[in-house]
Every structure is written in structure tokens, then in C-alpha cells.
């Protein structure tokens, strides 16, 4: 079993929390893990990505090879397209549909949607609305983590444990709110794929 995942978004959108939750789930399931992050300059509102690699065998490279990603998981629609060269032939693109527009030349929304739908098996979901409806707008990233969990052969309760570990210092209420987002994301993927 191996999952190479490219996490994508804009600095500050919380992709490292997604990496932490999925990473904890993988470790709990006894898998090897490597996760390359971006620090420094790009964190100031620029595009950011993280390479997350899970496997039942030893992992060597910290980076996912070109054509190697099983999943591109993006919290921003245009950013999901930036990493297409990494997506394997059988890989799946999963992205939030709410754009983050901090640049003046952001493309037309419908063009972005069209390009995403051009990718076979892509899943476009309004994670912002799902999180907002659950009273936790900041839980958008956990909605996305929940959706991704559907495509991995790791028991779902491991992801729930991952949330508990990731948000342990924030208290029960925050944990519960994020668990709801995770479950809602999972449900969306189950119903739409």
C-alpha cells in the first residue's frame, strides 16, 4: 500500500494541519511516512504545497516524483491545477471549489472549473460552505481531509484519532467541531464518487 499525496493551497489556509491529521492516521495504521513542507518566504500569501508520502515499505525520497501522485488534495481550485504534472495516470484530483483571490490576474471561475473537470475522476466540492453550515468556517481543511480519507485504505477511525491528536491542545469543543467537518467531507466523497 502506498499513497503519494500533494497537498496544495495558499499560505495560511491550513494545509499543514491536513498533513498532520492524515500523517497521524497513517502512523497509527503502522505505515511509514515522509512529509516535505514549505517554510519561509512562500508562507506570506503565496502558493504552498506539501508532499505527503505514506507506504507500508520504507520511503526514500522526500519528494513525490513527477507522474507519481495518487492524490492531489487542494484547498483552493486554481492551486489544484498547478501540480497536475505530479498526478499519476490513475491519480485523483480532489479540490475545494471556493477560490482564494489575492492576485489581480486570477482566471475566470468557469475556466478553472472547466480545467478541473477535464481531469478524469476529479472531485470538486464546496468545502467552505460545508464547514460554514456546520458552524465551523475554519474547518474547511478538515472537510477536505475527510474527503481524501475515502480514497485511502486506512480505517476512518484512524483519521478521527488524528484530529484528536492534532487539536488536543485546543480542547474538546474544537475537536468535536473538526470531527464533524471530517465526517461531512467523508460523506460528500462517499455520495459523489
Amino acid at each position, binding site marked *: 500500500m502506498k499513497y503519494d499525496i500533494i497537498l496544495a493551497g*495558499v*499560505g495560511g489556509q491550513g494545509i499543514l494541519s491536513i498533513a498532520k491529521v492524515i*500523517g497521524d492516521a497513517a*502512523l497509527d495504521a503502522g505505515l*511509514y*511516512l*515522509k*512529509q*516535505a*513542507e*514549505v*517554510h*519561509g*518566504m*512562500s*508562507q*506570506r*500569501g*503565496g*502558493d504552498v504545497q506539501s*508532499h505527503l508520502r505514506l507506504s507500508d*515499505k520504507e*520511503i*526514500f*525520497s*522526500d*519528494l*513525490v*516524483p*513527477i*507522474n*507519481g501522485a495518487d492524490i492531489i488534495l487542494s484547498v483552493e481550485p*486554481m*492551486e489544484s*491545477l*498547478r501540480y*497536475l*504534472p*505530479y*498526478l499519476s*495516470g490513475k491519480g485523483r484530483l480532489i479540490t475545494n471549489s471556493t477560490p482564494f483571490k*489575492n*492576485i489581480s*490576474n*486570477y*482566471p*475566470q471561475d468557469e*475556466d*478553472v472549473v472547466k*480545467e478541473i473537470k477535464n*481531469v478524469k475522476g476529479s472531485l470538486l466540492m464546496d468545502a467552505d460552505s460545508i464547514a460554514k453550515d456546520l458552524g465551523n468556517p475554519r474547518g474547511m481543511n478538515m472537510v477536505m481531509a475527510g474527503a481524501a480519507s475515502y480514497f485511502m485504505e486506512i480505517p476512518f477511525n484512524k483519521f478521527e484519532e488524528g484530529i484528536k491528536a492534532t487539536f488536543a491542545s485546543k480542547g474538546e469543543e474544537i475537536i468535536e467541531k473538526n470531527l464533524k467537518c471530517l465526517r461531512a467531507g467523508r460523506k460528500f466523497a462517499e455520495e459523489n464518487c
Partner: protein
Amino acid sequence: MTEKKVMLLGDEAIAQGAIDAGLSGVYAYPGTPSTEITEYIQESKAAKERKIHSDWSANEKTAVESALGMSYAGKRAMACMKHVGLNVAADAFVNSGVTGVNGGLIVVSADDPSMHSSQNEQDSRFYGKFSFIPIMEPSNQQEAYNMMKDGFELSEKYELPVLMRITTRLAHSRSGVVVNESVKQNELALPKDGRQFVLLPAIARKRYANLLKKQALLEHESEISKYNKYIDASDKTLGIIACGIGYNYLMENYVNEECPYPVLKISQYPVPTKSVKKLMEECDEILILEEGMPLVEEMIRGLLDESGKIKGRMSGELPRDGELTPSAVAVALGKKVDAPKEIPSIVAGRPPALCVGCSHIDTYNAINEAIKAVYGDGHVFSDIGCYTLGALPPFEAINSCVDMGASITMAKGAADAGLFPACAVIGDSTFCHSGMTGLLDAVIEKTNIIVFIVDNSTTGMTGGQKSHAETRLVKIVKGLGVEEDHIRIVNPVKPKHDEFVNIIKEELEYNGVSVIIPQRECMQTLRRKTKSANKNREA
């Protein structure tokens, strides 16, 4: 199983490895991708209990010198920096090879090939070679952890500093690391030879000869090092030398099969010549995989490239610049890599930007109105920090970013050449790092420049580390001799924009050194403070 595995960034593995290896002090200036080493030690409970020194230094030179002083006193010390920081520390670093050490000393330099967050992609291994100092270059996080203990032992065995060279991908990638019991710190003990650190020419000549003599022993250490491996295989049409994380990218390409070619993995230098020779003799061609510059490739190739069988970055099998990737290595190995999907043309670049509410925005708006709008483009020298983003739209306010502190001195040189106005924009932490001496030059000559010390009370770009400026910026500037009437503090906020512009205009009238200090806290540190204050209130 008694093995304890923890998830650590490469930087954190180095920090934990150092703590467990009996470290007594870390000295560092923040710089991507090295910052998290020192931060980890600052946060570590074990480090606090053991009273390990971990406060930031003013710059990389003071860091290496302090670490050398701790080593002089018999204890194990570490200095950490990014690659360009080693340029700042070079005087101390190179001479520490000649003095040698007493307690173990490891200098960690984190290189940034592909320049994710840097001005160049220099390879720190050249410094090690140049200084005759042994180098360790881990290929993964576990090796990074283990090498700290082995590095300190090597350092003490040969009474030499050790250079630990890592790159971005190792520094900022997390992996499971098995940690060991920690060893005790060294006792305070002066060097046996009271003249060891006195580099008067007569002593320095002897010590340098001694350093040269140690090279054969160090090379032998490299031959027998557990970090260097000769892995034989039957297909001798190719032999591969894989340095540091180059080894990972090689192995990545043979996950489901054995590598058919002999491999020499190098993670400890000087280069193990005997092993290289063996590979050269046995194989038809040699492919060299190294992250960063082609140091080993250049050495083996030699000026005349007589063997004619070396492949690597210089012959085009691998890209000449930028970091290695598993895919680039696959191509070099002659593996078929299918054409990847293309990035749709609609995808726009998303460069980093100043945070909403950042004080630098107000500063650049004022500078643009008072200087660019009146005198045109080309008058503002800047420096290394968040404010370098002032080069990008919508500001396009600055004309240089070269090295720490260069804003003030370049403005001075340009003013000496006759440029008016000549201005510098430098952050409070960068000013304390290496802006002060340049300002003194300008004060002494009464050069006609305006220096903006943009004071957000932190080292912002690297994540908000403590700045040496604290509340003493005005005192420092005054102490350097800037006239009191021309030290102007401003509050960079929108309602005070006109006042700010007027102050710049007033100082443009003055023929001498003016220092304008826009002072407002960094939005990131402010947000964190507010958050933790709210949390405390709730509690």
C-alpha cells in the same frame, strides 16, 4: 520493542540529536531552512532542564565565535545558519579549522538549492573542503540525528570542528526517527595547550601544518565511516556516486528492484578516495548524484577530464542548477519518464505578498510618494527580510536586495558616486545583524543618505524570532553618532501618511545621515500575542 520513534523535521532531528549528544549550547541567527533547529532547542523541556544555551545571536559570525568559545571551555557547542550565513561567519569558521577545538564543535549550514527562500544556491561543502574541515551530509532524518553524536565524537577525536551540511528538503521534511538515551554534558575544561587558540603567525604556521597532516587521517575516517557505503552489484557498465540526499533519489528509482549498478554512497567527507578509485576502475561510466553544486564531480573529473567517463551535472545528464528530484535522477539513469500532464495555461503565478495591515505597506506608500514620484525610480536600496517584497507590485519601491546589511552601504557608495537621493530600507533585526557598521561608515563621512530602519520588533520573514533591536534601536543609532535632530520616529499608519511623507521631505533637505524609524509591530506576532492573551483570559 524498546525503540522510540518520533516524527521529526530534519532540522528537529539535528536539534534532538545534539541535545542527546551532550550539547551545552547552540548559537544561531534565524535563516530558512535552518531556523527550526534552534527553535526546537528553545522549546525543548530537556534542553531547559539541562540549561542548554539557546538564545539567538546577533549574526552568524558572533554565533560561530561564541560556539568556539564554548568549545574552548571544553563543552560541546553547535552553531546553526543558512548557507549564506556561513559567508558572514566565514572568518571565524575558516580559522576555527586552524585553531582546532577543545570541546566538540559542529557548525550546521543549511543550503537552499533552487533558492526557495534565498539569494543564491551556494554549496557549503566548498567551505568545508577549503577549510580542511570534515563534513557530514546526512541522507535522511535518522542519519541527521545519529550524526550529531558521531560528529561530536569525531570533532573531539581530531580536535577539529565538523561541518554538518544539509539542504532544504531534508531540513523541512518530516520522518520517523529513532531516538536514544542522552549522554551527559562535558565538564568545564580549558584546552591542554594554552596557545592553541592564539593564531600569531608563528603559532598559526605550526597549527596549519598540523591541520594539513590530519587530512590523511580524516580521509581514512571517511573510508571506514558507517555513513559511507560501497554497495557492489554485477552490472559494471555504470557506477553511481550518490552524496547526501542524492542517495534517496537513487533508491527511489529502485523501490521494486535492486539497483543493478555498484553504488558508492557518500555522507562523510573528505571524499573517500580509495572507494572512488575502486568504482572508477571497475565501472565503464560513473554517474554522480549530488544535491547542490558539482563538488565531487569537479574533483573526480579534474581540469582535463582524462577519464572521459564522468556523468553528472557538468555533462548535462542532470540539470546544472537547482535541487535534485527523483524524476531528474530517473532521467539521468536512463529510465523512461512519461510526459507529465501539463499545467493549464490559465494558472496564474501567486507570489508571496506583505500581510494585510503590515506596517511596511505604509512605509513603501510614503517612500514612493516622497521619492519615486519626485525623483523617479532607482534611489532605494533594500535588504533581506519581509520588506524585500516591496520589490513586487503594487509597490515596486526598491532597487536592490543583495546581502544582510548591504542596503546602507550600497546607498553610501551610490551617494559617494553622486546619486541623490540615496536611501536604504532595512529591518530592525537585519540592522542589528550587520547594518550598524555600515551606518558608522556613513556617519564618519557625513554621507548624504536616508536610512529607513523599518522596525516591526521581530525577525519577521523567518517566523517572528526575537530581534536584538528590542527597545534599544534609537540608543544604538544615537550611539553610532547620528545627530539627534535627524533620528525621526514615525508611526506607519494610514491616517499619518501625510506626516510620514513630510518627514521624508524634511530629511531630504538635510545634507548628512538621516535615520527614519517607522515603528509598528509585525501583524503575525501581534496576532499570536492577541490569540494567546484571549486564551489566557478564557482560562
